[in-house]
Structure formats: C-alpha cells, structure tokens
C-alpha cells in the first residue's frame, strides 16, 4: 500500500472549530503566502506556480501555471473568476474548503490576481451552499477590514476587489464559459471555443482566468514553502496532494487529502485510514473514479495510482476527485439510469444532440428500470449514444459545444459493456446484443464470452 505520510497541505485547519476565522487563520500561518508573493515580482510568482506543476483541480486537470500564461499581453483589464460551483455527482471538496478555510481560498485568489495582473476577482459560489456563502462573506468582510483585500493591500501598490457572487442552481455553470455567461447575468449556456477561450475572450470579452476553489487553495502553501517542495510530492504529471471524496458502499465514506500520483484506488477504498473497505463484507462491483462523467472502473483497476496520466491511459479520468463505490448488491442498470437522469435534467438545451439525446436516454433507461424493457432497447440506447458521441469512444467525440451531452454516454457504455447480462435480462432479451462500441474504450467482464465489436 502506498498510504504515504505526506503532511496535509490544504486541510490543516479542517479539524479546528474556528479554522474559518481570521484570528485563527493568522495564528496558523495565514497570509504568509501572500506576503511571500508580494516580496516577489508577479512573473516570479507565476514561475513558482509553474514549478509546482499544479494541475487544475476542477475536473479537466489542466496545469494552472500554463493556463495563466494564455492571457494575451497588453490587454486590460484582466479578471480572475473562482469556480465554486461544485456540483458534479460524487464531488465534495470545494464546499468543505469554502466553509472551513475561506481565508485560505481568499489568500489563493489574491496570489493569483497579483501574478496575472487581475484588478478584480469574482468568487462564484454555488447557490445551494448557504453556509459557504456566509463563511466567505464574513471572511471577506474581515479581510477587507484588516487590509488583506481591497485597496493597497498590506501597504503595497497591489489593489484588488474580490466580489462574492452567488449561483442559483445549474450544474452546467461549472463549465467555465457557462459560468462567465452566468456571471454576466445570462442563462448559463456555454460559449463556443474557439473563439471564446476565457483567457483571451472571457468575462465582458476581456482576458479571464477561471480557476477552481481547490486549485487556488493550494497557492498559499506553494508560495510559503516553494513550488519545488510542492512538486516533490506526487508522481509523473500529478504533483502535490489532492482531495478525494470516497462515497457509496464503503465502511468509512469521507473526504481525504492524499498524496497525488502515488496513492492507489485500492488504498483509497480499502485502507483503514481511508475508505476502510466495502461495507458488510460485500464484494466490489464497480467504482466511478472521477465523477459522473467518468467511465467506470472495476477490481482490475484497483492498483492504478491516483495519477492523471495512468488513469487516462486505462480509459477513464480522475476528473473532480469523486470516487463512488458500488458493491455487488447494486443494480447496474439503475445506477446507469440515475447518472443519466442527472445529465438529462442538467442539459442547458443549447445543443440538439445533448438536449434530445440525454432526454431519450433517460426515458429508455427509466422504462427498463421500471420493468418494461424491450429486447431492442439496448441497441436503441447505444444508437442514441452513438448519435451524441460518434463511435462511443473515450475520450468521447463531441457533437456539442460543451462535454455535458457526451458525458452521459460513458455510464451507459460502461454498464452495457461490463454488465451486459444484466441489461439483457432487464430487457427480456436472449442471446447476443449488437454493441456498437469502440471496444478498446470500455472494460468488458473478464469472463465475457462475447466479442465487443466496433461500429
């Protein structure tokens, strides 16, 4: 087991009752990273973050330092937008960071603004998170009062306002261009990329960096301990520590900060200090390694490290750090239906393949779950999947502006390929089922007698 003894970086105040207060924050090393940043040039701060190899923690896993470098030179003003709209099923970490250590996030925002030259930041917090909003509002009020935010921060020439903004209930707003639309007061519908890459044409068509809450929460530590110290933790492309929420059928569901790139899924699910194994002595059936959009993993994937490259090569993604564990009592068809219902409900309606496709997938699956499945339903499901994302490949091919629609394909393809017999039984069919799936992209059962053929 690679349960490492790496010290936590971003959860150090989670055990404190008053970890969210300015007083406690200052007493535990708070705002030291900001002071270290202000003693350097913005370029040097940017270099420090590049040296840390900090990958974005929102889902896409893009290196934060590289993203910052995409702002076109000489175009002002620039904005920083904080994505606190955590709502990917299974994902639970940003809310904790906002509720329990809001000053750490604010300090991270300040460091990022200083480095990229953002003169205003917007902290977009999911609407449903009332306590997070209260904690951040209080933290901002206290930080303004004490001179850490606003005009001439700590007596320097660095000035920035951080505006707390509320969402109002829409998963799609977690997509960065949809978030910007929402922040402009519009319906949260994604923009086409190109040309609307936020770093070039973002909020009000100005250069805008959108960073996730967890990503920014790492910055105070990186600045006070050095980017290279951060990069010493982890492996390959995945450096530092990372928060994983382990939920579902484990003995100890929880949010754990683990060394990135080294710890394995087996550690996370079975180690006594983490998930503690499957409940009631049951068998593992499947687990979702990185949020609802990720293809499912199984027993044979347990020894993969929590490392972006390795998980990607094995046919899924680490996504947003959401590990959902299903034991052998789980109905695979129903689990697939529930994930797909989510995408059908949350489709913004802009692109036809997603709007129509996810809706029909949900209806067909619901019919099967309700016991009215027809033998041809499996082929029908896969045909709709193929229309949303041709070839049903991984990573999914896109027919839409954002990845939401194609994401709905992966739980179905996962479940149909792996638990084909369950689907056949639920649909009242017998014998072979045509499975027009790119066989390499999804994992069949080890004893599967039938070939999974290409389209």
């Amino acid at each position, binding site marked *: 087991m690679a349960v490492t003894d790496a010290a936590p970086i971003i959860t150090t105040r989670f055990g404190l009752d008053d970890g969210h207060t300015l007083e406690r924050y200052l007493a535990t090393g708070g705002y030291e990273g900001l002071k270290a940043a202000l003693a350097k040039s913005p370029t040097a701060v940017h270099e420090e973050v590049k040296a840390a190899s900090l990958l974005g923690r929102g889902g896409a896993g893009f290196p934060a330092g590289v993203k910052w470098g995409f702002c076109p030179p000489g175009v002002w003003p620039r904005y920083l937008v904080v994505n606190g709209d955590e709502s990917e099923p299974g994902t639970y970490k940003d809310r904790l960071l906002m509720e329990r250590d809001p000053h750490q996030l604010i300090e991270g925002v300040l460091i990022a603004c200083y480095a990229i030259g953002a003169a*205003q930041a917007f902290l977009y917090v999911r*609407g449903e998170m009332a306590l997070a909003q209260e904690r951040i509002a209080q933290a901002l009020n206290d930080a303004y009062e004490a001179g850490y935010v606003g*005009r001439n921060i700590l007596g320097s020439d660095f000035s920035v306002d951080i*505006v707390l903004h509320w969402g109002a*209930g829409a998963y799609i707003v977690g997509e960065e261009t949809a978030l910007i639309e929402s922040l402009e007061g519009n319906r949260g519908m994604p923009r086409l990329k190109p040309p609307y890459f936020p770093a070039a044409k973002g909020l009000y068509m100005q250069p805008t960096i959108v960073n996730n809450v967890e990503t920014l929460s790492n910055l105070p530590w990186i600045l006070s301990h050095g980017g290279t110290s951060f990069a010493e933790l982890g492996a390959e492309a995945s450096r530092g520590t990372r928060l994983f929420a*382990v939920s579902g059928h484990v003995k100890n569901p929880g949010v754990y900060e683990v060394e990135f790139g080294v710890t394995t899924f087996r550690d996370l699910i079975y180690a006594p200090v983490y998930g503690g194994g499957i409940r009631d002595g049951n068998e593992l059936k499947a687990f979702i390694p990185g949020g609802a959009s990720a293809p499912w993993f199984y027993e044979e994937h347990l020894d993969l490290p929590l490392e972006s490259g390795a998980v990607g090569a094995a046919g899924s993604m680490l996504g947003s750090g959401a590990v959902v564990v299903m034991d052998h009592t789980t109905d695979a068809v129903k689990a697939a239906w529930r994930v797909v219902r989510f995408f059908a409900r949350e489709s913004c309606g802009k692109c036809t393949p997603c709007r129509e496709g996810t809706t029909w997938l949900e209806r067909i699956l619901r019919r099967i779950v309700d016991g009215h499945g027809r033998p041809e339903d499996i082929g029908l499901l896969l045909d709709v999947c193929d229309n949303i994302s041709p070839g049903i490949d991984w990573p999914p091919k896109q027919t839409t502006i954002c990845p939401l629609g194609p994401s709905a394909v992966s739980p179905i393809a996962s479940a149909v390929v792996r638990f084909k017999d369950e689907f056949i039984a639920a649909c009242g069919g017998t014998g072979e089922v045509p499975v027009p799936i790119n066989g390499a992209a999804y994992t069949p059962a080890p004893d599967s007698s039938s070939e999974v053929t290409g389209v």
Partner: protein
Amino acid sequence: MARFSEANLKTATEILSRYPRPKSALIPLLHLAQEQDGYVTEEAMEHIAELIGITPAEVLGTCSFYEMFKREPVGTYLVNVCTNISCMLLGGEELLHHLEERLGIKAGGTTPDGMFTLEDVECIAACTEAPCLQVNYRYHYKVTPEQADALIDDLRAGRRAHEIPRHGTLARVRQHIPADRRAGNAVPGEAEEPVWITRAAASEGGAG
C-alpha cells in the same frame, strides 16, 4: 410587497455598485427579491429590470433558467432530498418516498398549509454524508426516516427557526466593502495595466 422595500433597494444599489456592468448583478438581485417575498414576483422582476436597465423579459429569461428561483409561492421550508448516485446507493430514494408519505405530497408539491415544499434534487455536494437533504439550503447528513420525521416535527413547531430562516433567505451574512478599502471596478475600456504590473516590468527592465 413586490417591488424592493426601501432597505432592500439600498442593498440592491450596493450590490449593483460592485460590478463593472450592471447586468452581472441580476442573479444576486433575484436572490434578494426571493428573500423579500419568498419567491420572485413579476413586480420584482420589473423593478430589477428598471434598476439594471434591461427589459423585464430579459430578467425573466435569466430567472427561468435557474432552479433555485421560484416564480410561484413555495413552502416556508423547502426540503430538498438528494437522490443522485451516492445518495441513491445509500437510501436517498427511500428517504424521499418516506417524506412524500409523511407530508402527503409528491416531490415538487407543497403541503396545503404552505409549510413544506418537497423536491427531488441532484447532487448537493455532501456525497460522503449520504443520504442527505437540505432545508432551505441548510444541510442534514445521514438522515434516517426517524430523523426526517423529527425534523419535520421540529420545523412545524418552530423549533428550528433560529437556525433555518424561511425560504428565500440564503446567506445571513452579506459582503460589505468599506468605501475607504475599495479598489474599484475594473471596467472594460477604462481600466489600464495595473500599477503593480507596470512597476514590476519597469524594475525588470521591461521583461515579463
């Protein structure tokens, strides 16, 4: 009640002042309207349109996209039960059905006394605490049917009023930027290169 009260108009003006473009304040102002009236009234949308300088139809266009905005009265307490994957695996659906029986309404409905509205919602980011629910966006973790019953009893008897405000009130703490601490809005077409960037570039000999 419908247009903003005098006190809320003052709050609305303060919110508007924090954005480089007024339409960005639309969602926060809709929340303010919902806080005032318990739901978003047509009159409130008209007032918001006036304040921002857009049409009421544009306000409605945004308002109708977001699930939290209710355009008809809902219960004093909005009970949102998560049934997404992590909660489903640990009894979220059963919890929802229990509450449907208990309250005598289907998900989406409101009790005749106007006390409760029940909703079947998507992931609310408490997956390790499944099954979970929210009452007016305040969390309750690992909820058993018995605990759900006790919660309903408490809410009916007003025993939770101090911790759970009525529907519409989201955050009880507001951001307030003191005038003497404000950096000011970065307005497109007006804001120039920030001074700390200019200064650093000069001292680095134009590099960066």
